[in-house]
């Protein structure tokens, strides 16, 4: 790959700033375009060495990682950060005991060292000991309760153990501190949907709706709203009134229309830029989804109307086959 030194540096910088995990690309760019010309790099040299080091560990390219580590340790002797990188290098070789030793020592010397504590959790996760990882992360969060990344990680650890209540609790903490972040609302709604009870489905519907309000282009939230509202509309639970079922059906239809609209827009955009073959398939796919979305919402209305004689118009739609629900 011959991208040219400038372009390669620009792309590495973009990856660094966006926080994307594209380790293979970083190491390839480094090895092919940048590593020979490090004298041309300015102050960003050290940030670049760090970035390449971590990415190289991620892909198992240990020689590249070592080359960067040597430069970094020469420039920053006696640095805690470099010490942590040495421990990460041991982790990459699967020498987890030695790495754990270093992290524990670092934590004992400095109780405010949050990063080595988090690496301890990572090591436990790598060993497959998720219950201990959860315990360690929970005690970390008692001391550092504003660490959003850690709350997200804890939520995922709980999800892997299928402990939906606790996973939801972690998301609640995140929503409390970032009430305008649509992704937290959407993830919370997904967890509630998965729980599967009537109350949690109602909650899922509300939180998907909130996510859509915060970001109308969040496709997961739109699909989630369509499905959750559909489930609420066809709920046979005693606590749901026919008015609330009608409301849910309306919401499902609205979400379906939004989904269909976005697929139509995407399909027409695809048609402009691709060859005729693929545009046909994406058009067909997009119109299929549009039809499907509308069918799904239509199948909600007859059921919602079933318990209530005073809504004749909705009952005339052909009920589509019920969507397969897990």
């Amino acid at each position, binding site marked *: 790959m011959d991208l040219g030194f400038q372009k390669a540096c620009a792309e590495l910088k973009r990856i660094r700033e966006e926080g994307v*995990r594209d380790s*293979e690309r970083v190491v390839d760019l480094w090895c092919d375009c940048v590593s020979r010309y490090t004298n041309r790099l300015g102050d960003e040299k050290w940030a670049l060495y760090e970035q390449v080091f971590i990415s190289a560990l*991620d*892909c198992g390219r240990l020689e590249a990682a070592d080359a960067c580590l040597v430069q970094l340790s020469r420039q920053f002797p006696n640095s805690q950060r470099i010490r942590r990188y040495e421990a990460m290098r041991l982790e990459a070789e699967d020498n987890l005991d030695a790495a754990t030793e270093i992290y524990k020592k670092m934590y004992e010397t400095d109780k405010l060292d949050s990063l080595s504590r988090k690496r301890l959790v990572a090591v436990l996760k*790598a060993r*497959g000991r998720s219950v201990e990882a959860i315990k360690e992360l929970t005690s970390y969060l008692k001391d550092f309760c504003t660490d959003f990344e850690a709350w997200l990680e804890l939520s*995922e650890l709980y*999800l*892997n153990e*299928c402990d939906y209540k606790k996973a939801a609790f972690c998301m609640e903490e995140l929503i409390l501190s970032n009430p305008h972040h649509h992704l937290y609302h959407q*993830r919370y*709604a*997904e*967890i509630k*949907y*998965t729980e*599967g009870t009537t109350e949690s489905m109602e909650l*899922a519907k509300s939180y998907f709706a909130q996510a859509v309000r915060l970001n109308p282009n969040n*496709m*997961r939230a739109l*699909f*989630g709203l*369509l*499905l*959750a509202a559909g489930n609420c509309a066809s709920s046979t639970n005693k606590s749901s009134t026919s008015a609330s079922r009608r409301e849910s059906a309306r919401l499902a239809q609205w979400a379906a229309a939004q989904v269909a609209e*976005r*697929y139509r827009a*995407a399909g027409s*955009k*695809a048609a402009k830029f691709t060859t005729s*073959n*693929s545009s046909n*398939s*994406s058009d067909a*796919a997009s119109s*299929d*989804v549009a*039809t*499907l979305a509308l069918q*799904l919402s239509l199948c909600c209305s007859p059921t919602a109307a079933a318990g209530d004689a005073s809504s004749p118009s909705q009952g005339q739609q052909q009920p589509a086959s019920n*969507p*397969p*629900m*897990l």
Partner: protein
Amino acid sequence: IVYTKIVVMSQFLVEPLAVAKIVLHACKYPHTAVNGVLLAEKPSPDSSNSSSKPIVICNTVPLFHSNLNLAPMLEAALMQIEATYKNYAIVGYYQANELLNDASPEGVGAHIYQKIAENSPLPRSLYILVDNKAIDRKCSTIPLIYYQRKEAGQSQKLERLPNSAVAIDDEEDCLETLANLLVRQAYRSLVDFDNHLDDIGLDWTNSRLAEQIRN
């Protein structure tokens, strides 16, 4: 498809396109678990009882690389797949675990597989687990492990299938194609359903990639 003796005696026949998409999906996200479903042609209503012939798994749909155990997007994906692939049925599930040493098919993957198996129109369903340790650029073996549920209605446990139960169509050619794809980093252009939800302009059927693989 060449019906060699090996193929005829096996329960499933997996086509190279399916193998390639599974391995590419696992290689695209080496740091997380990934999953997807397996597709086979729907049996025509007038076909004779074909439980003796191997079920041909001709394609897969890569689904997710994050939060595999959340239901709503899985339901949305399965509905879209059924709407798009009208002549095909979902007959199985594949998963690559997050940890290198984790070779267990149990957990949420097993649950999804059971649901798929219950709803499949074909007599048997397959669970493919990617053997993380066996993936390497030389592609000397097919890095997949096969499971199936014991008879329906029983304890629903998964049992491991011997490699003889699952044949790969034209295995040597498949391995060579796979090696080429890995060298060219073809996994970067693979689109799974998660990618599609992030940008619905992306084609989760991967028709372009399929053309590349077939050639």
